[in-house]
């Protein structure tokens, strides 16, 4: 009997290479478990039953032939349904893409396929990744496996709940304002948003192109690092990707945090945080100190304005990016009428409430007479905030804050109050606004639900970020 809940990338690799289990058996076990468990959780929109078993057979053949296999080979992975896998549907949880079949692989998919990873299926999300609870999916509700009356977070809620309920070993998500880190936090997992440009966005259904980034949601820091190692790098198909290589081996050299200065972002603790969250963070700070890190307070004076910037820049890009869904392409359903009628019917009937709200907001802030007051102003404040981070990083290697202001909230609690929902991203959005890498790590206090700690690093310093996270994870498990 394989214990699915104990599996990590390295453990799967050991099981397979020591021939304790075949890839086929392992994948079959996962598929059977998903069939049972996902009726409750609702993490997957689609499961690739036959294809996954076929891929597993290929891995078994390689093992039998004595070929050396990658660490990721045979590892069951869940993929957020806004990342394209050739010849399979990719809906972004929107009715407007209900019949769309991807005609190419996203670069991250191509890279994972090459490593031999096995895709179990595509996971639920807030429509076009717009939301913080996965309740904006046009197709189904996803529950938090740690407490099924609560949301899994969002927008990568399906990916997070698939991993947390052991229906996959690890997953890919996308993060525009916290959509990897916040669901990881709500589900007690590790979530990594790489530096903007570190991972190719080719084949990611665009939401806000200047902020979107693909990254892993995993049970351990090591797994997140191993996935990053495989998906990172410049891609000619994504002009915003930059030369970046991450080598896992570099992490092994780092055994303490003696040369690391960590700045605790003062402004993040000025609001009334839940006492348990505050305690959990204080305990984490002590642990980091015990690893040798030098820790003190730092100010990012305008960090609180990040969310306001975000809710101007993001909708502006959304309104432009989603203009392509015109009802004529992407296998829209048959609606007749004049061209204009067709646009109105398709877009009016197939975009959900939150998507429409953001398109309208974006159209407004870009419109003549308002552009300077909103969009241009937000771009300037974005620059101001980025500069403040840059200054802080002259003194500190890492910055620390909570990931989210609360633990997982109840299903339905915030769905009718958009601004309250937006505020659950208050601590995650700054990393997107400044293009920084950031990681969410679970921390616990009294409360049976996990909280989370966020660490941020300067652009392309994933090595420091992950090294510190790895050591923190080790010491907090003791």
């Amino acid at each position, binding site marked *: 009997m394989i214990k699915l809940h104990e599996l990590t990338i390295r453990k799967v690799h050991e099981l397979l290479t020591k021939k304790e289990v075949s890839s086929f058996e392992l994948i079959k076990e996962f598929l059977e478990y998903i069939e049972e468990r996902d009726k409750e959780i609702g993490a997957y929109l689609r499961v690739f039953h036959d294809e996954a078993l076929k891929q597993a057979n290929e891995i078994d053949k390689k093992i039998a032939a004595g070929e050396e296999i990658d660490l990721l080979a045979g590892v069951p992975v869940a993929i957020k349904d806004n990342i394209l896998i*050739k*010849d399979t549907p990719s809906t972004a949880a929107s009715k407007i893409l209900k*019949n*769309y*079949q991807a*005609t*190419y692989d996203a670069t991250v998919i191509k890279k994972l396929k090459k490593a031999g990873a096995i895709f179990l299926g595509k996971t639920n999300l807030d429509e076009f990744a717009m939301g913080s609870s996965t309740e904006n999916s046009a197709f189904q509700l996803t529950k938090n496996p740690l407490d099924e009356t609560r949301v899994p977070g969002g927008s990568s809620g399906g990916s997070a709940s698939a991993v947390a309920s052991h229906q996959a070993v690890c997953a890919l998500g996308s993060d525009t304002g916290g959509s990897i880190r916040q669901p990881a936090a709500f589900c007690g997992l590790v979530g990594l948003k790489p530096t903007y440009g570190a991972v190719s966005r080719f084949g990611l259904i665009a939401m806000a192109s200047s902020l979107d980034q693909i990254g892993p949601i995993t049970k351990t820091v090591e797994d997140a690092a191993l996935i990053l190692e495989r998906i990172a790098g410049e891609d*000619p*198909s994504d*002009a*915003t990707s*930059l030369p970046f290589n991450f080598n896992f081996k570099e992490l092994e050299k780092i055994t303490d945090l003696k040369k690391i200065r960590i700045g605790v972002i003062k402004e993040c603790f000025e609001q009334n945080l839940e006492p348990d969250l505050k305690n959990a963070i204080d305990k984490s700070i002590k642990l980091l100190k015990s690893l040798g890190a030098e820790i003190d307070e730092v100010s990012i004076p305008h960090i609180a*304005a990040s*969310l*306001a*910037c975000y*809710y*101007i820049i993001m909708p502006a890009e959304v*309104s432009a990016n989603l*203009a392509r869904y*015109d*009802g*004529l*392409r*992407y*296998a*829209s359903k*048959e609606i007749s*009428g*004049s*061209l*204009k009628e*067709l*646009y*109105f*019917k398709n*877009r*009016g009937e197939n*975009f959900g*409430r939150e998507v*429409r*709200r953001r*398109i*309208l*907001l974006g*159209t*407004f802030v870009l*419109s003549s007479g308002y552009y300077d*007051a*909103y969009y*241009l*102003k*937000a*771009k*300037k*404040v974005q*620059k*101001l905030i980025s500069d403040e981070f840059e200054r802080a990083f002259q003194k500190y290697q890492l910055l620390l804050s909570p990931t989210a202001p609360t633990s997982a909230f109840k299903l339905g609690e915030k769905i009718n109050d*958009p*601004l309250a929902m937006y505020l659950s991203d208050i601590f995650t959005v700054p990393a997107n606004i400044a293009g920084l890498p950031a990681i969410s790590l679970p921390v616990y206090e009294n409360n049976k639900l996990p909280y989370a700690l966020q660490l941020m690093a300067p652009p392309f310093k994933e090595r420091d970020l992950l090294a510190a996270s790895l050591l923190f994870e080790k010491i907090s498990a003791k």
Partner: protein
Amino acid sequence: MEKKLINEKTVEHLLELSRLKIDEKEKEKLVDDLNEILNYVKELEKIPTENINLDVIKKSKKLRSDKPGEENLSDWEKLIEGFKERKEAWLKIPPVFDR
């Protein structure tokens, strides 16, 4: 008291511009929601930004030459199968002007 930065008429104009429609009964709540969000983001106007210059680009990326890539990235035949209606490889749309 929150300022009403957007009214029903503006929302109707935005709906027209963005080719969207909503139920009449949704409109009131939508106007309220948008006003609440705009009042929140409007806080940015208090932050002085006279000295911020957006024209300075720190890192510029070397652009590739303007030649088609070697790799066939997408199966275009399959891509155009998603067209609502087509004539050969062309997307066929309803007439834009009345005859």
